[in-house]
């Protein structure tokens, strides 16, 4: 690889550059002229994606096959790179939330959470307890929705199409709840710097409890459908193995790491937003195969149901956003009577708030692992740098390890259970 200089090589040639010979590795077998009549040894390089339904987005996998066995995988990403991080540098702090939510588009609350927490850290402001609990409730509902959709599309890849309808049906129940509390089904921009934008509407709690009642039953139904299905078991058990050491080396976090038996969960290890008040377990797997990943996600949904229940039971009274008027908008009714409120409102909407210079990195446990947000403030009303450590981006590096020397059918199962979100990978 060292003697290969990409400058000056035509683009089409460079696309071919990622084959095994170019990588400088030993060809597995038979890249030399195949014996007449026996063509099984020939290596075949195919483009898996970018537009392939099983890649969960626009992910291109340059796959080298020997017969039906995957010998090498090179993920090629960047097809949905929209420069969100660059756009963030041109927006006021409170407008950036809209942008970061669109990175990992199934776990939008978590993106907003990591970003808001980083800015809150820079501003050194407290979030009122009610806002913390509301954030937890929304994030855990979002975790359920995200896992459901991942499971639904993952099962579709493996041919279990019923799961797609069931998963999307139940994810819709969560989206209805989001619509009721924040006005949007996805990308709600509900979390604000300093709290949440609105208190929950009357009747929301009852609707959530209704959902929490049916969700465990639904999870049992999924298990009845999938966990006793011979095809499902055979396609997941023992495939996509990755050891705990390798997963840690590659920086893999979230359900993928927990499936290898490592109980690393930021909600437990480094609690934020009052997670230390909640009683929940961290499900782990034993082998680190695709089946464990599936089971860990199912059990995580059960734990999320428990957390939302506790968050509703213990929901503290009080304000839902900080009363620091330099950061949060004043309540609407004050605008008619208070000159100061009007000035604050005007300054916040036109100029935004200024953040003292500094750097902060905050990580939260998203459905896919550690979602970290790094914000550099230079004292102006716009961030100098917003970088998101997206778990899908880092976890994707483990795909070649999982898929190497497995059948191409298991490779599909690996992508399905890796559950990468390409919006988060490319940002």
């Amino acid at each position, binding site marked *: *690889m060292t003697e290969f200089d*990409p400058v000056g090589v*035509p*683009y*089409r040639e*460079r696309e071919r550059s990622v084959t095994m010979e170019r990588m400088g590795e030993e060809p597995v077998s038979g890249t030399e002229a195949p014996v007449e009549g026996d063509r099984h040894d020939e290596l075949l390089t195919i483009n898996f994606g970018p537009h392939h339904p099983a890649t969960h987005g626009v992910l291109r996998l340059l796959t080298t096959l020997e017969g039906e066995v995957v010998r090498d995988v090179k993920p090629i*990403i*960047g097809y949905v*790179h929209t*420069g969100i*991080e*660059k*756009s963030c*540098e*041109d927006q006021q702090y409170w407008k950036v939330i809209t942008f970061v939510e669109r990175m990992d588009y199934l776990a939008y609350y978590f993106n907003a959470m990591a970003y808001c927490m980083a800015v809150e*850290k*820079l501003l*050194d402001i407290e979030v009122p307890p009610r806002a913390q609990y509301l954030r937890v409730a929304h994030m855990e509902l979002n975790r359920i929705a995200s896992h459901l959709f991942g499971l639904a599309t993952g099962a579709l890849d493996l041919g279990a199409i019923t799961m797609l309808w069931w998963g999307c049906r139940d994810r819709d129940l969560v989206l209805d709840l989001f619509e009721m509390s924040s006005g949007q089904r996805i990308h709600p921009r509900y979390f604000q710097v300093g709290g949440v934008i609105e208190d929950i509407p009357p009747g929301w709690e009852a609707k959530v409890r209704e959902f929490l009642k049916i969700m465990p039953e639904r999870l049992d139904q999924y298990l009845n459908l999938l966990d006793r299905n011979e095809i499902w078991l055979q396609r997941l058990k023992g495939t996509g193995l990755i050891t705990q050491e390798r997963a*840690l*080396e*590659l*920086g*893999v*976090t979230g359900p993928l790491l927990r499936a290898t038996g490592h109980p*690393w969960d930021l909600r437990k*290890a*480094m609690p934020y937003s009052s997670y230390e008040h909640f009683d929940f377990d961290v499900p782990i797997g034993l082998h680190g195969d695709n089946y464990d990943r599936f089971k860990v996600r199912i059990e995580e949904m059960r734990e999320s149901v428990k957390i939302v229940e506790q968050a509703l039971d213990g929901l503290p009274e009080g304000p839902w956003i900080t009363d620091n008027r330099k950061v949060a908008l004043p309540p609407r009714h004050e605008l008619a009577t208070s000159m100061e409120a009007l000035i604050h409102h005007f300054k916040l909407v036109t100029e935004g708030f200024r953040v003292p210079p*500094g*750097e*902060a*990195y905050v*990580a939260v446990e998203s459905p896919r692992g*550690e979602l*970290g947000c*790094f914000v*550099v403030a230079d004292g102006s009303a716009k961030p*100098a*740098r917003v*970088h998101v*450590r997206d778990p899908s*981006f*880092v976890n*994707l*590096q483990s795909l070649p390890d999982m898929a190497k020397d497995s059948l191409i059918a298991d490779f599909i199962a690996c992508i399905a259970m890796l559950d990468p979100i390409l919006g988060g990978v*490319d*940002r």
Partner: protein
Amino acid sequence: MPDATGLELIAQRVRDRLGGEAVRDTVFFRGEATLEVAPEAVRATLAFLRDEDAEPWESLMSVHGCDYLPDEPRFGVHYQLLSMERTDRLNVKTRVGIEDPSLPTVVDMFPTAEYQEREIYDMFGVVFDGHPDPRRILMPEDYEGFPQRRDFPMGGEPVLYTFNEDSYPRWYD
């Protein structure tokens, strides 16, 4: 996070091991510990913190690039270290100038850094010497310029469609 005293102790251990020049600065801000090291010492520092230090930092969670434009040296590269045992984080930071924006790679120590270093090269043009696959990652391979630099303008790029592909000579090369 290590507290301010803990950070000074870490800095002192690094200085003892690698010489006084290795550590440029220590910053303790809002409970976050940042150890600023010289660019030539970054590999040795990370190796020391990972393997030899009394309080080892075995995981690298994230690598961030950053452009502090009016300031010199311009680019900052941050290594977010994590100790899962002590549930503690440490930020190791280094600054490189625009004349020679290069750093040694840490992919052999932390394989997780492979994509992240490629991303920093892609976005800021910081070259990681010894990286196993030093290509662009998010931008197209034939892209010119480093878009996350602060002096790189937003927008204004021609977008290639079928109707205007003839106006870009040999775009398919």
